[in-house]
């Protein structure tokens, strides 16, 4: 059995009311322990709704969600499930609760009954990872948008769960901050074998995943490796997703008659292919102005 199993899962908001809304429709999805899965999809496609099922914040209207074999509908298991699945919410303000940054990060581990010395170690480590050591005694609501996002991520890291669900963790970060979060996630996945479910609108980040799952109107409409997904530029547009920079550029160049192989979506690869096509690629440089 896979670590995460969604089995014919549907979620209806306001069931049996006039404004009833199917946010997820008969979703089947298995995620193995240690996998890194990115979830992509248009605004309103159901990504956050799906994420909230993974730590039993929402329960399926139909079907099942099982975490490590435990059904999220079994009330007695919710506690165990939350010890295994950490969550970074889409909006950090929904997550930050304490009046001081370090208390906020300690809150999760405290609830898990982690001993104080260990909590201190985890808080330090988490703050360091997100480069916010200097803000330890700050009030979270006085931080900038990106700083809040970092604190929310640190809070989830301090839980040291087997699985991390991150809902658009980098939306408000600068490029450097995004790079740092992504490399932290990759490290947790690579070194500690943490299972990662990563929701994003940034294709460059999704490219780091083992597998991409695409949602549209509550249905899973596509799955594959980043290479498979990103080479379908027409589909990407249909799904309201960005086309990665290199794929977009390669497509534009092909339209101008430059012969490039199919399926390019990484900058390095595109640069390599272009160098092959250059008339005498090694005769030195020429720069503008």
């Amino acid at each position: 059995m896979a670590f995460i199993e969604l089995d014919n899962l549907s979620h209806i908001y306001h069931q049996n009311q006039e404004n009833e809304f199917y946010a997820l429709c008969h979703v089947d999805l298995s995620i193995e322990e240690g996998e890194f899965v990115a979830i992509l999809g248009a605004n309103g496609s159901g990504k956050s709704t799906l994420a909230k099922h993974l730590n039993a914040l929402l329960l399926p209207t139909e079907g099942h969600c099982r975490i490590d074999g435990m059904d999220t509908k079994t009330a007695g298991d919710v506690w165990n499930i939350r010890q295994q699945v950490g969550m970074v919410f889409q909006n950090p303000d929904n997550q930050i609760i304490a009046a001081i940054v370090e208390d906020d990060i300690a809150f999760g581990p405290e609830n898990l009954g982690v001993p104080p010395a260990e909590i201190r170690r985890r808080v330090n480590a988490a703050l360091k990872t997100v480069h916010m050591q200097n803000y330890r005694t700050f009030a979270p609501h006085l931080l900038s948008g990106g700083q809040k996002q970092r604190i929310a991520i640190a809070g989830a890291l301090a839980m040291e769960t087997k699985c991390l669900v991150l809902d658009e963790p980098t939306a408000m970060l600068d490029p450097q901050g995004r790079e740092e979060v992504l490399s932290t996630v990759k490290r947790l996945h690579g070194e500690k074998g943490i299972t990662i479910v990563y929701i994003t609108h940034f294709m460059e980040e999704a490219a780091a995943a083992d597998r991409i799952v695409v949602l549209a109107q509550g249905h899973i409409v596509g799955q594959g490796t980043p290479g498979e997904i990103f080479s379908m530029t027409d589909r990407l547009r249909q799904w309201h997703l960005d086309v990665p920079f290199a794929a977009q550029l390669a497509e534009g160049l092909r339209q101008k008659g430059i012969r490039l192989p199919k399926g390019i979506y990484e900058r390095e690869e595109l640069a390599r292919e272009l160098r092959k096509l250059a008339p005498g690629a090694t005769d030195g440089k020429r720069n503008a102005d």
Partner: protein
Amino acid sequence: MPIELKHVTYTYMPKTPFERTALQDASLVIEEGSFLGIAGHTGSGKSTLVQHLNGLLSPSSGQVLIDGVDIHGKQTKAEKIAAREAKRKVGMVFQYAEHQLFEETVFADIAFGPGNLGLEEAEIAERVKEAMSLVGLPYEDFKDKSPFELSGGQMRRVAIAGILAMHPKYLVLDEPVAGLDAVGKEKLIKEMRQLHKKNITMIFVSHNMDDIADLADQVVFMGQGRILLHDTPAKAFREKDILREAGLCPPQMYSFLEELAAAGLPVDTGALTVKQGIEHIVRALSPKSE
């Protein structure tokens, strides 16, 4: 007439342990009709700066002038009225715009601002419809929904529509496309361009240099509460040292061409957008291009 910041310094929570000077002697002229992009690392003071543009924050020292009116000066009653009028010309979409939402339905939320302007019902409804279509929210599907029961990207669109419906003369958007999907982003960017053509002065904060290169005719880079640079995009992205100091990267196309050139491909660098870049590369690859 422009918006002018004159030596603006802003300190949050002065004389407390949380005291922090987030803006340091910032002077800036935003000419009417310009399209200004503001970039800088997390915590560099961008949101603090833009919140001065409509008087939401008052400078600890220095002045803010909107169309020549000092919006905080020691004032007579007439001057106070003028200041209020001036501030109203500036529409502001916050960084977490979804927090601006508070009404029971999407319609009521977007109608709130125009309602405050004292417009007639029919005119208000017209503006709500127009604004919703501009941000890509189908009117019939969304008008009666609660703004709190929407997805993150949908909430953002409602918040932006609420400001657009007020038809401001200056429009300030703090990270407007964060969290929008590709279509939502494209729509909003197109809309920003159109508003600019209709003579609205646009000011936006973004971490995305591609968007800045694509839209802005002026850029400001911030670092540690200071304005490090104010110039055209073409010139600004050449300032490698300032970019590094601000913790920013140039647009993807710009750095990609530099990488190609460094690897020995004889390509002209300097293009900021994919469209320009394609031309540079095609030229470099065609056999007798000289």
